[in-house]
C-alpha cells in the first residue's frame, strides 16, 4: 500500500460518512429532493430507499478505496466515488418520486422592508483585495528576494504544482487569490441581492436572518483564508505551516457547517401563518434529480439547497453559468500563466 494514499482514503471515508447522513439533513416534507408526505421517510418503503442508498454509497466508497490502494491517480479515485454517489442518489430519487405528493405552491411574503447587510459591510468584502495588494508590494520589494519555487496548487497529498519564484509568478499567484476573493464577494452579494428569502413574520423571519448571516460569515471566512494561502505561498512558508493552517481552517469550516445544520435550513425554521405548507415553495419539477435547480422564470441566482445545507445555483439563470464558467476556466488560465 502506498502511504501517500492514506490521506485520500481518510478523505473518502469522511465524505462517505457525510453522504450517509445527507438524506437526514433536509427539510420536513422532502426526501431525496422530492416533496413527500411528512411520515413517508419513516415508512417501510422510505426506510428501504434509504437503506439502498446508504448501501450504494458504501459499496462505491469501498471501490474507491480499493482504487486508491492500487495507487491509481487521486482524480480517478474521486471520480469513481462521485459517479457511484451520483448513481445511488439518482436511484433513490427515482424511487422517491413515485411517492411524490402535490402541495400548494402558495407563497406568503412579509411586505415589511428589512434591508439585509453583509457582516462588516463593503469594507469587510474589499479588505482582502487591499491585503493582497500589500502582500504583492512586499513580495516584489527589495526586502524580499525571490528564490526557489512558489507552490501554486495543493492536492490531498500536499503541494503538487510549483512555479519558479519570479515577479510574474508572484503576480499571477496573487491574482489567483484575488480571483477567488472575487468569487466569494460575488457569492456573498448574490445571496444578499439575488436569492429568495423564505421570510415570514417574526420570529421565523429573525431565524432566517440569522441563518443567512451565518452563511455570509462563512463566505467571508473563506475569502480571508484565501488571502492567508496567498501570503503563505508567496512567503514560501514551510509545508507544515501550511498544513496547520489548512487543518485549522477545516476545523472552523466543520464548526460553521454544524452550526448551520443546528440552526436549520429552509423550513426547519419556518412557521406558517395559514395553510401554506413548509418548504421552499418551489415546484419539484424545477429540481432535476432533486439536486439541480433549473427555473428560467425565477430571477434568483442562488436558492436554498434541497440536500444538505447552504445554497445552490439556479441553472436556469444565465449568470449562474457565467459564475460557474469563471470558476472552472480561470484557475486553468492562471496556472498556465504562472508556468509562463
Amino acid at each position, binding site marked *: 500500500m502506498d502511504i501517500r494514499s492514506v490521506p485520500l482514503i481518510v478523505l473518502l471515508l469522511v465524505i462517505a460518512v457525510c453522504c450517509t447522513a445527507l438524506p437526514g439533513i433536509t427539510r420536513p416534507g422532502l426526501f431525496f429532493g422530492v416533496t413527500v408526505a411528512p411520515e413517508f421517510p419513516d415508512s417501510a418503503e422510505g426506510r428501504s430507499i434509504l437503506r439502498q442508498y446508504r448501501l450504494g454509497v458504501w459499496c462505491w466508497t469501498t471501490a474507491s478505496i480499493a482504487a486508491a490502494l492500487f495507487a491509481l491517480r487521486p482524480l480517478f479515485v474521486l471520480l469513481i466515488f462521485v459517479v457511484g454517489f451520483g448513481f445511488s442518489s439518482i436511484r433513490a430519487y427515482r424511487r422517491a418520486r413515485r411517492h411524490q405528493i402535490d402541495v*400548494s*405552491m*402558495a*407563497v*406568503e*411574503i*412579509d*411586505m*415589511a*422592508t428589512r434591508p439585509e447587510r453583509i457582516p462588516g459591510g463593503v469594507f469587510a468584502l474589499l479588505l482582502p483585495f487591499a491585503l493582497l495588494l500589500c502582500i504583492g508590494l512586499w513580495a516584489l520589494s527589495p526586502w524580499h528576494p525571490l528564490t526557489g519555487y512558489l507552490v501554486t496548487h495543493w492536492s490531498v497529498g500536499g503541494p503538487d504544482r510549483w512555479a519558479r519564484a519570479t515577479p510574474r509568478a508572484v503576480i499571477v499567484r496573487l491574482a489567483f487569490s484575488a480571483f477567488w476573493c472575487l468569487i466569494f464577494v460575488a457569492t456573498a452579494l448574490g445571496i444578499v*441581492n*439575488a*436569492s*429568495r*428569502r423564505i*421570510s*415570514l*413574520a417574526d420570529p421565523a423571519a429573525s431565524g432566517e436572518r440569522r441563518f443567512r448571516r451565518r452563511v455570509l460569515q462563512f463566505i467571508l471566512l473563506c475569502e480571508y483564508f484565501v488571502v492567508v494561502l496567498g501570503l503563505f505561498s508567496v512567503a514560501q512558508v514551510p509545508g507544515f505551516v501550511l498544513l496547520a493552517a489548512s487543518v485549522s481552517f477545516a476545523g472552523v469550516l466543520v464548526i460553521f457547517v454544524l452550526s448551520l445544520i443546528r440552526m436549520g435550513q429552509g423550513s426547519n425554521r419556518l412557521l406558517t*401563518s*395559514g395553510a*401554506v405548507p413548509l418548504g421552499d*415553495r*418551489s415546484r419539484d419539477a424545477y429540481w432535476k434529480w432533486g439536486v439541480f435547480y433549473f*427555473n428560467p*422564470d*425565477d*430571477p*434568483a441566482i442562488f436558492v436554498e439547497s434541497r440536500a444538505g445545507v447552504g445554497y445552490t445555483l439556479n441553472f436556469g439563470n444565465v449568470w449562474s453559468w457565467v459564475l460557474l464558467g469563471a470558476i472552472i476556466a480561470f484557475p486553468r488560465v492562471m496556472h498556465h500563466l504562472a508556468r509562463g
Partner: protein
Amino acid sequence: MILRIDPSSGAAVYRQIVDGLRVALVNGELAPGDSLPPVRRLALDLGINFNTVAQAYRALAREGWLEIGARTGVRVRERSTPKQVAGAESGFRRHVEELIAQLQAQGVQRSRLARELRRVLSALEGG
C-alpha cells in the same frame, strides 16, 4: 403585512399582487409613507419575473396608491377618496356573485361562504 400569492390558483400573479396590496391599502395596513419592497426584492422572494412585480406596482401607481421613484423606491402615497365610478355598485355585486359561484363550484359549502361573508361585512361595518 403578509402578501399571499398562489401561482396555481388560475388568477394572474400580477393581479393577485395588485388585489392583495389593494386590500392592505384600503384597510390601512399600509399607510401613506410606508415603503414597499423594491421590485427586485419582491420578485426574488416570490420567485417570479421582475416585470410581473413592476406591472403590479405600476397598476397601483395609476390608481394613485403608490409613488415609484428611482431613488425613493416604492412608497405609499396619500390618496384622496376618488369619486365613485358609475356602475361600480352593480359591478361589485356581479363580482361577488361570480366569486361565490366559483367557490361553490370548487366545493365550498354555502353555509361557510355565508359565514365568511358575514365576518367580512362585520369588519367592514366596524371600520
